[in-house]
């Protein structure tokens, strides 16, 4: 796997490629996106995290000019407005929602169509991209016969056509097999090394956490938090995990010991988030009460857990 070039990111720091101010989209009575202040800097791999219906796709659609904001502004490559200019759009490569291609054409012809459309002069660009996304051996196979993974690869290929400065990818690894996910991950990291800024959403948070350098958490249309990778790592709370078949008995003992920040993670796992825990004392007390413990370990919160706790938090 490629290593994130942190020095390179430092050089670009605070050079915004995309910012939104109070960006809002209302459909009848429903606020799909609610006063979003988003900031994507050059060199970022910005991971947009949110549940289904949180407003991720609507936000992407507004940035890509497919939907007009009800309110607010978008600043893209230094140009501010309520709508994104065509010149700016030509510097973006995007794959939003279901990738639309012509079913009767093969991968090469589909990309060739869009090469002509985008005015990409380099005729070999299509072959290079097919190679890059792993579709060079798709041959004459029609798009309608593609697997979902192949369709996703082609969508990423289309986004790459025309050497974009900003890539906007909505769930790009949906439907990919494990090997495909690794390949797309490496590809995105490689592109990022070439100073392409990436705005990406994915349900696979563990996957997102391997590439994103910055995160935005969207809940019910609101951007509830923006955080850097380093900041997230610092904020990720450490906890002691107790794996047991007797969850309720463990909770009673921990309560008697005076622990306040205790969470039942699953039917057979309890976590203690309190500071200054004497692990030895906890184990001894539990054993004294004859509670059966299968595992006791220190764990750190990952992106998935951070997202869950953020979603459940009262401040949101």
């Amino acid at each position, binding site marked *: 796997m490629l290593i994130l070039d942190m020095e390179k990111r430092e050089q670009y720091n605070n050079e915004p490629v995309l910012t939104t101010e109070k960006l809002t989209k209302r459909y009848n009575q429903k606020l799909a996106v609610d006063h979003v202040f988003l900031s994507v800097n050059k060199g970022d791999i910005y991971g947009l995290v949110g549940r289904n219906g949180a407003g991720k796709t609507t936000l992407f659609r507004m940035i*890509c000019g*497919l939907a*007009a904001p009800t309110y607010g502004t978008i600043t893209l490559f230094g140009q501010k407005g309520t709508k994104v200019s065509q010149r700016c*759009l030509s510097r973006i490569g995007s794959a939003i929602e*279901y990738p*639309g291609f012509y079913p009767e054409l093969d991968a090469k*012809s589909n990309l060739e169509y*869009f090469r002509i459309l985008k005015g990409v002069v380099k005729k070999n660009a299509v072959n290079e991209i097919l190679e890059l996304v792993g579709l060079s051996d798709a041959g004459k196979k029609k798009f309608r016969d593609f697997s979902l993974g192949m369709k996703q690869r082609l969508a990423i290929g289309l986004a790459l056509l025309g050497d974009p400065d900003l890539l906007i990818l909505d769930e790009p690894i949906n439907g990919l097999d494990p090997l495909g996910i690794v390949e797309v991950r490496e590809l995105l990291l490689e592109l990022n090394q070439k100073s392409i800024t990436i705005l990406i959403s994915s349900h696979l948070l563990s996957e997102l956490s391997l590439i994103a350098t910055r995160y935005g958490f969207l809940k019910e249309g609101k951007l509830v938090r923006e955080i850097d990778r380093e900041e997230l790592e610092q904020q990720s709370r450490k906890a002691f995990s107790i794996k047991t078949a007797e969850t309720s008995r463990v909770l009673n003992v921990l309560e008697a010991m005076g622990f306040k920040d205790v969470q039942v993670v699953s039917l057979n796992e309890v976590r203690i988030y309190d500071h200054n825990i004497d692990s030895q004392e906890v184990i001894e007390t539990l054993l004294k009460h004859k509670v059966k413990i299968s595992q006791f370990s220190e764990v750190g919160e990952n992106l998935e857990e951070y997202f869950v706790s953020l979603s459940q938090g009262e401040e949101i």
Partner: protein
Amino acid sequence: MMNLIKADFYRLVKTKMFYITLLLSIGFTVVQDLSYLSREPISAGNLTKLAAGNSDFLWYFILIFSLSMMANDFTLKTHKNVLTSGLSRTGYYLGKGVFLALLAFLVLFTHFSLSYVLGYLSAGAGALSFFSILISFGLQYLLTLAVVAFLTFVIVFTQKGTATIFATILFITAPMIAIRLLQRVLPVLSNLIPFDLRFNMLAALSQSVQSGDLLRMILVPLFWILAFNFAGIWYFGKLDIK
């Protein structure tokens, strides 16, 4: 916009539909012309005139092209890829309109050329001047462009192929049938005939045609072309693409 037209031509020649539809339209023209010629030899000019007056069936072939090359974009969501590539909505709309207009030209030109050639083989060039044939072609093309403008508008408005088919058939046939039936009761309604886009080409090319009639034949389709295009561009401009 030019790139969109070029790209659409690239796609067009890659699809079997194009060749099948073109062959079918040629087949219809040949069958129609041969049915005229089976009665008596007809000169190139006169056969072209006859073919011009009976070429509305070509609109259905143009409808097939429109469904395949534009309505399909909305069904398959490929228009999203086009619009996010930096082409404006007006550029997209006009690009598709121009592309379909060029296809319509190809279909009509093939129809007229075939009729002329078959007539020439049957009874020579004939007395009808090239200018008359040109007017005939121009008028029929103008009417076809009005149908194309209607088609593009309906496709963008409904974003559905079936709705486009029904709306177009209604647009082409319903006013004609309604006016021609009702004028028997209310003769004054015959004044509305030019507005139904089904002009009598034979009358247009006759010696007795009034210049005012000819002007009206030009202005009515022009009005429809402008009206549908402006409405389409306005509607598409404010549409949220999903």
